[in-house]
């Protein structure tokens, strides 16, 4: 089973975690000014890259904290794990 390194608890089995989708999606500054199409794009449209992808994860069976991770979608390697208030690390 794959181990996911929680920034607080250290490496734990992936069954302790929940996936939270793409990270770093900002809430619109003025939601009421958006058209229906722009609102739908904010709600439902997510990147689907082949390669490094910044995602949110929750350590739901452990410390129950959300954190971000950069995962390579081709290999499932977790390239970086960082706390929710930290910027996305630069990965060459």
């Amino acid at each position: 089973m794959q181990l996911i390194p929680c920034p607080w608890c250290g490496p734990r089995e992936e069954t302790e975690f929940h996936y939270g989708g793409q990270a770093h999606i900002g809430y619109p500054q003025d939601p009421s000014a958006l058209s229906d199409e722009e609102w739908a794009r904010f709600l439902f449209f997510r990147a689907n890259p082949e390669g490094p992808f910044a995602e949110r994860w929750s350590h739901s069976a452990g410390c129950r904290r959300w954190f971000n991770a950069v995962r390579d979608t081709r290999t499932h390697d977790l390239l970086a794990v960082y706390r929710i208030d930290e910027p996305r690390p630069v990965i060459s």
Partner: protein
Amino acid sequence: MTVETPRRAPLGEWATRLGELAPALSIAEQPFLTHLSLRVRSRAPMAALGEVLGTGLPRQPCTFASGTGRAGAVDVAWLGPDEYLVMAAPGIQPELESLLRQALDGTASAVVDVSAQRTTLSLAGPAVRDVLAHGCAIDLHPRAAPAGTCVQTLLARTGITLLVRADDEFTLLVRQSFAPYLAAWLVDAAAEYRTERT
């Protein structure tokens, strides 16, 4: 008019079957312990808190601290970066809660009585690490999990909090509604250790 009904320990009916596992594994339920959820930021008045608890808050993730303060003997477990679980003797919820509230007066914090959520099991004996290893992915070798370790994880797919008190002495917290399931699992997992190993 309210009718006082006697409290029933979640694993009261399991006491005999759990007791039969000794000496390889002795399991005793400690029901109705005082459990308070403590949410504090790092700027909290740690000195006043330390006086009430008799110990500082555990600084390292996945550890716990024990002390004897103004509310008697307590354990304080790290549950998250700003979240702690205070465990103390049964029946002192109001006193401990008000002592903690006084110590935290005026700071952004929360003290919540969560005693009804979990029940507590004391596990001890030579087979305890082996039995837990049947259903727990955490490395419980004394080198990896020394005394003072407190992990929240899954045991037999059930969420637990596990406190390592000594090499073969553990405290296990489990939700009350999951406790009979976990007791059944422990009895089953410990079956092969029930005769004295030579």
